[in-house]
């Protein structure tokens, strides 16, 4: 796993979460990202998986986060909002490239 990650490659879960963050610009947080993925792909991620993946991507430096404003529907608690970093964008691009190169010729772009 380490050599896989050290090359900057992404797991499928990481890819999904990272793409969801990109989609929601800098407004994404755990609940909304999970909803986004479920709506678009039909994949219902476990609550824990979402947090673990976000946490890992943040520690890898692919995601940055900040605390939003507290809202009443959240019992006065703030959201942790995520944005993609340049490193995250590079990782996304590298993942795309790697896929493209691995694909058999007739499907290549």
């Amino acid at each position, binding site marked *: 796993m380490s050599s896989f990650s050290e090359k*900057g490659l992404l797991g499928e879960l990481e890819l999904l979460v990272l793409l969801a963050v990109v989609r929601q610009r800098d407004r994404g947080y755990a609940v909304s990202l999970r909803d986004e993925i479920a709506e678009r792909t039909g994949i219902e991620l476990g*609550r824990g998986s979402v947090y673990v993946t976000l*946490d890992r991507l943040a520690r890898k*430096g692919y995601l940055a986060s900040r605390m939003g404003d507290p809202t009443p*529907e959240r019992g006065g608690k703030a*959201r*942790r909002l995520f944005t993609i970093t340049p490193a995250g964008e590079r990782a996304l691009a590298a993942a795309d490239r790697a896929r493209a190169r691995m694909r058999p010729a007739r499907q290549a772009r």
Partner: protein
Amino acid sequence: MTGPGRLPAPARWALACLPADWRESVEGDLEEERRRRAARGRPMSAARLTTAVIVVATRLALARATTTPRLGPRAGRTRIMRGFGHDLRHALRRLRDQPGYAVIAALTLAIGIGANTAVFTLAHWLLLRDVPGIEAPSRLVSMGFGGQSGARAPVSFVTIEALRAGMPALDGLAGYSSFDLHVGTTAAEAARVEAEVVTGNYFSVLGHPVGLGRGFGADDERAGAPARAVVSDRLARRLFGAAASALDRTLAVNGHPFTVTGVARPGFHGASRLGGADLWVPIGQHRAALPMYRGDALTDPGVDPFFGMIGRLAPGASVELAGQQADAVRASLAAATPDRRPADWTYLVRPGIEWRPWVRSRLSDTVTFLTGAVSLLLLLTCANLATLVLARAQGRRQETATRLALGASRWRVARLLMAESLVLAVAASAIAVGVAAVAGRVLEGTSLVPGAPPIARVPVAWPVLGFALAVAVVVALLATVVPALRGSRLDLRAGLDQAGRSLAAGRTRAARLLTAAQVAVSIALLVGAALLVRSMAGRLAIPTGFDPASVLSFSVEPGLQGYGPRQEAFYRDLLAGVRAVPGVRAAGLSWLGLYSNGAADTRFTVEGAPGDEPISAASNMVSPGFFGALGLPFVAGRDFEAREFQRSDATGDGVLILTESLARRAFGSAEAAIGRHVVMAYPEGRVRTVVGVVGDTRQRQIVTDTGEMVFEPFGQTFPAGFASVVVALAAPLDRVLPGVRQVVDGLDPDLPIYDVARLDDAIRRRFSGELLVMRLTLVFAGLATMLAAVGLYGVLARSIADRRREFGIRTALGATPGGLVSLVVREAAGVVVTGAVIGVPLCWMLAGYVRSRLFGVTVLDPWSAAAATLVLVAVALVAALPAARRAAGLDPAAVLR
């Protein structure tokens, strides 16, 4: 239930387990989700919410613990060495890179911890383990009749009944006492076993030590009750093959039929620790069990067979209250029937189960010795590990300096070394438990205390594992913290300098001193071991007056089977039968077994010299042929004659045989003694004639024997209920023994023979305690020497590594390899000599402890000191040579570049 903005309480508590950077947002997320679901009519239960928090917390914690911080591109900047977990991983990597250091350090630790674990295992088994079947031992009290001086006397059943009546603080008081009794079955050979004669409530006071069938009750304290017995699990298996098949079988106890109604739980062998009882007989059966007491044990206060009493405290009662009540009983008994006991004697009440006194004193001796020895070994281990860590800290100067230069704290740097030692400690404690298990196998079957039953297989218990680990960790930290902190105190500039040469000297000196201290302790232990070996050799070289290796001895006790006057014919038939066995050259009878615990002394005055001080000497009663069987030569006069065998000298025509030195002391010479009369002090005033003088002989305790003895004919003073047969072997023991057994079996199948041994083995058994101490000291000295050798090797290897440039220059300037080797060897010799200079006087300082165990040598024995030093010099050479050869093999060009 949960108000707006409030997760259920358990869920909120669980939030505390989340990483701080997630806590608030996760709480908000869940609250949001909870409201959404509630709005859709699918509310989330409190349990589900709590579970959700726990799942998230666990998964985050796991994910963070299992990913290394090197992962991403920015990780290196954010998490340099945080947490001890990282230290441990780092330590593992470093140790993997240098397996030599890891192995040596772990083995060093394992030796010290293993020895300690082995002793702890033993102590745990002896002192701390629960005795099977004994319930709530903290509520048990031991009682004994005695005074403050420590003297004890047995008590009668009548006294126990009085104590029961007068001590409401006790929920039951039982009496017990151990005796060797005879057990015969139709299936197996008759045996002599340790038995306890007990009151009817013995088992119920202890709890439930009887696992199968039942114990005794109140009716077993009556005369005429059915004869019932309880056997140990071990004896049941031996006699009947299985515990369950012993029930309702008939045993011959001392020749009387008993029914087995109970089998004790495996491991239960009596109410005392280290007990060895295999049979329990109720006091109601005293006529069969205890024929040596003539009166009625149930009603006669003069019959006092109970050496031990054990009671159970009533709910709410204290030991003090029981003591006061016991004192009151004592006062009223003494008022009713005054006795000769001192005024301070009373019925002492002590909490817990007691050791048997003779076991206790000797056991505490042995345990003290063992504990002292292993503690010393542990100190050595600490010193050794400290040396190794010191060397390692030094070898890492550059790395350490780099870390310090980059801003790491000294504590931070020391922690890395400590993490390594902790990893080693855990590995070492695993090895140590293995060592302890092996040591347990080695000790199995040896008797830690002469006379006590041998140690069973001692299992390695859970507390032992904890102990080993705890000791390992403490040792690792102790041995590491000082050198690690020292190692982290560096002059940065010098440390970063590639060669780092100027620093070596100081730290090598510290390591060298530590090693010299180890050598000193090793030498002290080696000197001690050498002294003990020489003492043992000295003891075994004491002349016995005959060749013990060619004499078999065994004992019989027809008195226990109630033979009465029949025993005279039995002894005659026994001697005749044994003499006819093929391979038997000669045989004789002795009242007291040779090298057994029995002892008798006598006093007499020479007739016609009434004013003289009485002469006292060891005595024994023997049959005609006894001296011939031993091969003890007659210096003058004759052996006893057949007509003197088993004849009372009440008529006044008794005879005696003296040993040569006693004859000389009393009469001037052996010849002068023959035909002379002596007046005995016991039986008082009886006159006996000296008919023979034999060579001096030591046949009781050897070391304390003087060689002077008085022999009288077997049965002359009183008929003896037991006897030993000494047999001169003309064939190997195992060819003769079956024939001998057959003779006894033919005379009485229920009569066992016991203490069967060749006399040289019997002598060695007498010294088993001393032998054990000697062997253990040898083992400890060997281990200490190994540790010292490892330490010495470490110091030399490090010193050579530090002085590579120096050696290179020396070689470049023309030093020969031989010269370099001798340089290193001289350094090793310096350490050993320093150690010897400290170590030999150290041993003399410990002399007080050693002296009592020595025989025939003094603590200042120069041979022992020389031998110990020589051993260490040899070991030091072995440790120095590989290092020296490495020094000689250095390539000057490579080193100096």
